[in-house]
């Protein structure tokens, strides 16, 4: 059990890649934090720095207030589950589970007891004498989890532990991991590039891009109140549309001018520290969740757009539209399946004015819609 703090952590690799830039992040005792971002965003580097497998160029790592930056991996009492599991191929499952305990000179009886307990918890009892290569992907994953939990470490690190599994198993084990973590109550940092995994697993999610922390918070907060266009586009499936627009004063208050349409802002929240008035008459980015768009009924159409492609998902369809105004952008709408849509159609669209997001031209959020 431990509180983990990363303080202004920086890492530049020998080839000049700036993997992390002044990362500040704290994980509370017992918390499940997911680090998410596109590949190369520095999330795995953050994990490896915390594990002690790399050393930072600047900044500090603290566990329960103690600075561990200079400690070796074995002194930090942190366990890690690797993407490829890194099970020792020449050892049985039992020996794999016992290895971290043997290294720490536990008594033989205690090793046997803990291995047995972990095996029961993860339903590995029947597999204890097998070698890793005789196991399925899901079983290997469980052994890797088992090896992490046997020694009751202060912190769990998981580096894309589900990415080698097929989609169905991934959902299953995702739930198992969440349950296990709740039961053990061990502080956990989990790295993934999959925002669905992040949203479903994390008590808190931290979004990284290009080595910088973009935003951290509860999954719903990231979805409802993204700090910038990156988070808005990354969280949600598909992510938010961001489109060039202008903010102009209107009769009833500020209105967004977009592709000839005028959308008055209704409801929503202005981001603390921002004032809509400061952006009046300026270029802004309009954010629209795919489900804030729908096919207009007679008389309510605000604009129309041509369909590029349709992905039918059964209960809904994702419709890719040429953004009105000829900017060349693609607009994604999530529509119900009652309207039959085919590529080449021109659709009259209605936009839910209460759900408009606004971002400054630099990408920072100005206004959050209600959703």
């Amino acid at each position: 059990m431990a509180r983990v703090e990363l303080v202004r952590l920086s890492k530049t690799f020998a080839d000049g890649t700036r993997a992390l830039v002044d990362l500040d992040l704290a994980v509370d005792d017992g918390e499940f934090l997911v680090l998410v971002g596109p590949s190369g965003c520095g999330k795995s580097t953050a994990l490896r720095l915390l594990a002690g497998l790399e050393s930072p160029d600047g900044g500090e790592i603290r566990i329960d207030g103690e600075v561990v930056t200079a400690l070796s991996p074995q002194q930090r009492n942190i366990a890690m589950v690797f993407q490829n599991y890194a099970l020792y191929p020449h050892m049985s499952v039992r020996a794999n589970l016992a290895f971290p305990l043997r290294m720490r000179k536990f008594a033989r009886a205690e090793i046997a007891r803990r291995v047995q307990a972990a095996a029961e918890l993860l339903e590995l009892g029947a597999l204890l004498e097998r070698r890793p290569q005789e196991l399925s992907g899901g079983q290997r994953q469980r052994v890797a989890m088992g090896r992490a939990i046997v020694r009751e470490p202060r912190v769990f690190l998981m580096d894309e532990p589900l990415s080698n599994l097929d989609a169905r198993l991934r959902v299953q084990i995702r739930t198992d991991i969440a349950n296990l973590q709740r039961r053990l109550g061990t502080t956990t940092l989990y790295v993934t590039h999959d925002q669905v995994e992040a949203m479903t697993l994390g008590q808190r999610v931290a979004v990284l891009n290009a080595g910088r922390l973009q935003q951290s918070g509860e999954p719903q907060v990231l979805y409802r109140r993204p700090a910038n266009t990156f988070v808005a586009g990354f969280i949600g499936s598909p992510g938010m549309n961001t489109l060039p627009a202008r903010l102009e004063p209107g009769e009833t208050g500020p209105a967004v001018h977009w592709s000839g349409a005028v959308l008055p802002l209704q409801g929503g929240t202005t981001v603390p520290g921002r004032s809509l008035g400061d952006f009046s008459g300026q270029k802004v980015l309009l954010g629209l969740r795919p489900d804030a768009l729908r096919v207009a009924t007679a008389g309510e159409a605000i604009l129309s757009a041509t369909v590029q492609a349709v992905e039918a998902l059964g209960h809904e369809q994702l419709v890719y539209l040429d953004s009105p105004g000829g900017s060349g952008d693609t607009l994604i709408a999530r529509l119900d399946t009652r309207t039959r849509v085919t590529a080449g159609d021109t659709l009259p669209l209605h936009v839910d004015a209460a759900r408009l997001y606004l971002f400054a031209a630099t990408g920072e959020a100005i206004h959050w819609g209600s959703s």
Partner: protein
Amino acid sequence: MNGRVQHAVARLLGYIGLLIVLALVLAPIAFMVAGSLKPDARVLVEAGGLAAFLPAGASLDNYRDVFARVAFPRYLFNSLFISALIVIGGLVVNSLAGYAFARLAWRGRDVLFSLVLVVMIVPLEAIAVPLFYQVTLFGWRDTYLVQILPFVANAFSIYLFYTFFLGLPRELEEAARLDGAGVLRTFLMIILPNSRPVFATVAILTFLTQWGAFMWPLLVTSGEAVRPLPLAIATFYTLPPLQWGDIFAFGVMMVAPILVVFLVFQRWFVRGVATTGIKG
């Protein structure tokens, strides 16, 4: 011709080709074994025909001769002792060096590794004279030490270990570090058990090279006390009478240990050649 017939013919031709190669490889060995069992006078006389491979009127006289003429057990022990120590010492030293080059970060590593690569192409003959001078100064002539120590650390072996270790998944070592193992324990408990092929390859290649060592022992030793087998067989050419039957018998006894070593390690050796990408 349809595809199946074509396929069968191709296979047949392939087998015939392999049989020819096999015959070429086996013929000298068969000649040696047959000759070692024949009276001396017939060895060269029959060498021109198929009779060369037939040990008609076989006897062990030549083998008895060998034991009578030289202290064969002494030479055999010397060869085994020297080769074994070079192999064992070499496995320890070169595997650790290869691991340090492949996985540990330390100052001067890359410069030193380029030096290792350079040393790899320098043949013993090129440095034999200065080395001879050096060991003479040390007073090491006529010892086992002088035949062992210069050959323990070996650039080619280091290179083989290095390439093999580079191919092992790094996460295995990282997992071991996190599990609480230090560098040496990681090497002994995780790397070593997963590197049998390269250990077998290096062991066999080292053994083969050292078993046939001739020039260096000839330079630095005299007398039978510490000399290996190749020097003993040479005396059969230089001290009359020149008896081919005896030489062949000696040859058979000298090759036998190599075959044993190879058979023991062959399974790993083949895998080692495949994984390290070297040719045996």
